[in-house]
């Protein structure tokens, strides 16, 4: 279960990471894309709008040009009418006989007269009442574009006028001189100005009046109202806020809806530089009569040749709120911003889905590593991709295979090691056996040597002992009953001499344990005989002996006299452990199993009979635990000095060892002792 959790976690992890990574990348790309799109869109929009607006401005300019041409043409047409010419010629005739100085004198005088004359005076009436003047006045009424029109003669003197002019003498005026142009004659156009006599804002158009010889005979001047030129501009609109503006050379508005001409600047002087120097075709300004709004401005110069010739600078500007102009890109940006989260969600989803494609092989690999990790080296990795994962899976499979082969060889090695160990153990066992045998042989040799020595010593000791005992017998008779002290001393000497004799006997027994004459014999009869030999002692101590002997026992391989000695020793020990009486239980039976033998060493013939076991159990004082390991040592004894010499159990053990049998002692201190002797049987 935990494994499953881990797996799921891993999967989620990798998927989330992938999705996050992709969405991060996508986000960055989108931000960059939107940024670039916005920037370039803006530029593009700027360029496009600029170009479009410029084109529109040009068209408006062309329209304006046409209006100018029309006005000029009109003035030209009027000035070339025959009637006008005749009138002017008539005026010129007046100067024919006069020298230029007198002419000028005359004109200045007339001018003075004109200025001082009352509107209803004869002079004014004379001029304005003439047929031509009435015609001119009619023109201004009929053609509302023309605010004022008048004609001068070749010297600058007024010939006829639609209304009273401020001066009579016009030759000192700029327009007159420009139009006269030293006698060459040309069309003069004056920039917008307020015409005092006409009371309108307009432009002056002056056109020379020429005779058939193409000589200038007079100058016609008309003031054309500014309105005339604004016609194409009126009502023009682009989008919601886009409109057209006419600006003069100084940046003052000539036309703007709802604003009196020449009362306000279009834009700041500094921004106007952009226009007057034609540095930027389109630009944005905040500094305008339109408050707090960025406006986008394009412009075109009114390029009528006559305007250019007369150095009149008019600008037709298109103004539109920048907000409106750049609204599309702003909308694009907004849409992009709005779309981004959705796109990111989609990308996360797609990445999440897509991650499956490479998670699957990873998972397969993971499962494979787990299997292999658990030792299933035959597990086949099934990844069928051509990419790095496929290669990885492939090499993983190879690794598992190699691992397998090496594992197999390790197993073989282990088996070999085990076999060698077994062999080693067998060898060790054999060695131990040999060693034991050797020890036994050495022991036997030692015992033999000891035997020789002991019998020599025994002989030498026994002889004096015999003499001592004979001597005591001799003395006993010399000191009869009445010398109790002497007879007591003699009895003590006698006892000790007998004890010494026993020690010698024990030594002899001990030294001869290795010499066996083994014959198949009935162990039960040996037990009975031995028990008989100690019978009087058992009776003496009040010990009750019980025999539980199996009748069907096989013959044991024993040296009868030695085993007799063993039993007697054991009986004596038991008797001594029960000084105030008790029970002695003697049991014989056949062992349930053979002595444990390694299978391969076992001789399967019937010869390997089970051994016989003899148990001798007493209810005596038992053996303290601390004595258990010393119990078989020669001369170890817990009995009183008179009790024994401590060779009994050691002799017993030696005899049993010589029989290749076993002797075991189980004892509980205070409760009793059980001696278990195991002896080989015929064929055992």
């Amino acid at each position, binding site marked *: 279960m935990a494994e499953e959790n881990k797996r799921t976690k891993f999967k989620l992890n990798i998927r989330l990471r992938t999705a996050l990574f992709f969405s991060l990348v996508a986000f960055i790309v989108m931000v960059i894309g939107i940024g670039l799109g916005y920037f370039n869109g803006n530029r593009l929009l700027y360029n496009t709008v600029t170009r479009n607006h410029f084109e529109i401005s040009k068209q408006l300019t062309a329209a304006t040009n046409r209006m100018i041409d029309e006005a000029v043409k009109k003035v030209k047409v009027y000035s070339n009418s025959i009637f006008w010419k005749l009138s002017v010629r008539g005026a010129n005739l007046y100067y024919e006989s006069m020298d230029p100085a007198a002419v000028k004198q005359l004109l200045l005088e007339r001018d003075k007269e004109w200025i001082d004359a009352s509107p209803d005076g004869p002079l004014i009436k004379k001029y304005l009442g003439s047929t031509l003047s009435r015609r001119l006045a009619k023109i201004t009424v009929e053609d509302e574009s023309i605010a004022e029109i008048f004609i001068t003669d070749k010297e600058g003197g007024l010939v006829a006028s639609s209304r009273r002019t401020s001066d009579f003498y016009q030759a000192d005026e700029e327009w007159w001189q420009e139009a006269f142009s030293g006698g060459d004659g040309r069309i003069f156009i004056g920039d917008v100005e307020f015409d005092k006599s006409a009371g309108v804002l307009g432009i002056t158009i002056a056109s020379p009046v020429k005779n058939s010889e193409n000589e200038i005979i007079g100058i016609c001047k008309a003031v054309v109202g500014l309105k005339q030129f604004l016609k194409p501009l009126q009502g023009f609109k682009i989008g919601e806020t886009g409109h057209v503006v006419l600006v003069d050379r100084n940046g003052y508005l000539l036309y703007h809806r709802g604003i009196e001409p020449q009362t306000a600047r279009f834009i700041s002087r500094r921004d106007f530089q952009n226009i007057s120097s034609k540095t930027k075709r389109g630009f944005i300004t905040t500094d305008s009569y339109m408050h707090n709004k960025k406006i986008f401005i394009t412009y075109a110069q009114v390029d009528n040749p006559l305007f250019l010739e007369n150095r009149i600078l008019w600008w037709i500007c298109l103004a539109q709120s920048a907000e409106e102009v750049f609204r599309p890109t702003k909308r694009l940006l907004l849409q992009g911003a709005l779309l981004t989260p959705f796109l990111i969600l989609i990308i996360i989803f797609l990445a999440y889905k897509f991650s499956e494609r490479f998670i699957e092989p990873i998972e397969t690999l993971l499962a494979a590593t787990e299997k292999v990790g658990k030792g299933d080296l035959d597990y086949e990795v099934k990844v069928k991709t051509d990419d790095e994962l496929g290669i990885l899976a492939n090499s993983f499979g190879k690794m598992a295979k190699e691992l397998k082969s090496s594992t197999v060889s390790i197993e073989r090695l282990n088996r070999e090691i085990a076999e060698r160990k077994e062999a080693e153990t067998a060898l060790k066992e054999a060695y131990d056996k040999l060693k034991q045998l050797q020890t036994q042989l050495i022991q036997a040799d030692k015992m033999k040597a000891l035997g020789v020595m002991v*019998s020599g010593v*025994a*002989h*030498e*000791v*026994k*002889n*004096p*002992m*015999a*003499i*001592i*005992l*004979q*001597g005591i*017998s*001799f003395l006993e*008779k010399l000191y009869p009953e009445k010398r109790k002290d002497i007879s007591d001393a003699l009895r003590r000497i006698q006892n000790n*001499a*007998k004890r010494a*004799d026993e020690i010698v*006997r024990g030594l*002899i027994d001990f030294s001869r344990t290795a010499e066996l004459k083994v014959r198949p014999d009935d162990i039960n009869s040996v037990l009975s005989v031995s028990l008989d030999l100690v019978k009087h002692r058992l009776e003496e101590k009040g010990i009750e002996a019980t025999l539980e002997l199996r009748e069907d026992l096989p013959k044991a391989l024993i040296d009868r*006299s030695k085993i007799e000695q063993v039993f007697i020793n054991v009986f004596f020990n038991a008797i001594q452990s029960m000084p105030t009486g008790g029970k002695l239980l003697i049991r014989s039976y056949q062992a349930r199993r053979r002595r444990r033998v390694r299978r391969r060493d076992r001789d399967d013939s019937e010869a390997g009979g089970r051994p016989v076991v003899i148990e001798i159990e007493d209810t005596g004082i038992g053996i303290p635990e601390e004595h258990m390991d010393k119990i078989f040592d020669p001369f170890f004894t817990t009995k009183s000095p008179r009790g024994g010499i401590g060779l009994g159990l050691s002799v017993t053990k030696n005899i049993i060892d010589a029989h290749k049998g076993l002797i075991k002692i189980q004892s509980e201190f205070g409760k009793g002792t059980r001696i278990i002797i195991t002896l080989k049987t015929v064929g055992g």
Partner: protein
Amino acid sequence: MAKKILLIDDEEDFCFFVKNNLERESAFDVITTTSGKEGIKLAKKIKPDLILLDILMPDISGDEVARQLRTIEGIKETPIVFLTATVRREEVEAKEGVIGGYPFIAKPVDVEKLIQEIERHISK
């Protein structure tokens, strides 16, 4: 007439005490010698009723003495009892063939037991 016992044993002290003890406790006359050769001479001379013979002796061993005694006329039938400090029955038994199945008494020996044994063998 008191029975004559010849004791041949190299231990002079043993001879002394056995002679005294036997003569006091019984009616036997005890003649002793510590030498095998001397013993054989004495046996020829006194013709004892029983010979007590030590086995291990410096000059001649007990069984050699016995063998020689058996060759002497008049002593051939005299009972010989070995006295031995080498105790073990099987040792003596092993030499039975050589010494002709003579009985033996192990040293050390009680006076009473010795008398019993002597009487038993003489009466045979």
